[in-house]
């Protein structure tokens, strides 16, 4: 289901990557600009950007000799995919519940289906 080689969640688990991502959320930037403002070397910034890009969190585009990174706008489509499976799962579970004989209000402790007829 996840079409990205690296999960966005995992990619943001690194504090440096989070701060890079947070900066890109404010303004698209080139590698050098990010490196100037963070206590990280330029090659390290590049490496982090690569991970963020693989995770689908940032994209880049060429602007003359520079490459500008910005937050990936396809967040919406990923949200959509996630909600799509969320609701499919919810309705499938709902079908199981509604097709059972009525047992009155929910019992939250019930994590397992009720036992069958006891002899």
């Amino acid at each position, binding site marked *: 289901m996840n079409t990205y080689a690296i999960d966005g969640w995992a990619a943001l688990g690194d504090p440096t990557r989070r701060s890079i991502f947070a900066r890109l959320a404010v303004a698209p930037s080139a590698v050098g600009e990010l490196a100037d403002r963070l206590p990280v070397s330029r090659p390290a910034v590049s490496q982090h950007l690569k991970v963020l890009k693989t995770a689908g969190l940032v994209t880049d585009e060429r602007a003359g000799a520079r490459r500008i990174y910005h937050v990936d706008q396809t967040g919406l489509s990923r949200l959509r995919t996630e909600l799509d499976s969320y609701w499919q799962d919810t*309705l499938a579970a709902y079908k199981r519940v509604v097709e059972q004989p009525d047992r009155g209000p929910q019992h939250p402790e019930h994590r397992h289906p009720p036992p069958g007829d006891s002899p």
Partner: protein
Amino acid sequence: MSETTDPTTVHATIDVDAPQQRAFEVFTRDFGAFKPATHNLLAVPIAETLVERRVGGHIIDRGTDGSECHWARVLVYDPHDRFVFSWDISPAWQVETDPSRTSEVEVTFTAVTEDRTRVELTHRHLDRHGDGWTGVRDGVSTGEGWPLYLGRYADLITARASTTG
């Protein structure tokens, strides 16, 4: 089922073997019994999920420690045809407090036969969450926006890693 796909809307449909009235009752009353437990916005396990079944009511997750999460507002409560609630959850699965940045979920119930009901769910206006994804400039500068937001991401990853190890 492939009409024109609106990128800001999610559709899901299911037919259930239950009369329309029961289909509506179970959906609104027992929501917590079938809502996936995988997306818990509380720090502790959910003890119960309550649906306040009136316009202006909330859908509330209550944690085992008594903490509560109001993550939806009931917008339409029309037994046994229609139920609409807001989705006050950001793309990062945190409660969204700004109503202009929330989407909405409409659920309709239509009798197919006396004992069979079609349940159609539409989650729309997803683009309204877009601000939560790309914006929050002010939040970033005050330290309450993205950094906090992303810190929570990280907390969740840690929690996930320790439970799915």
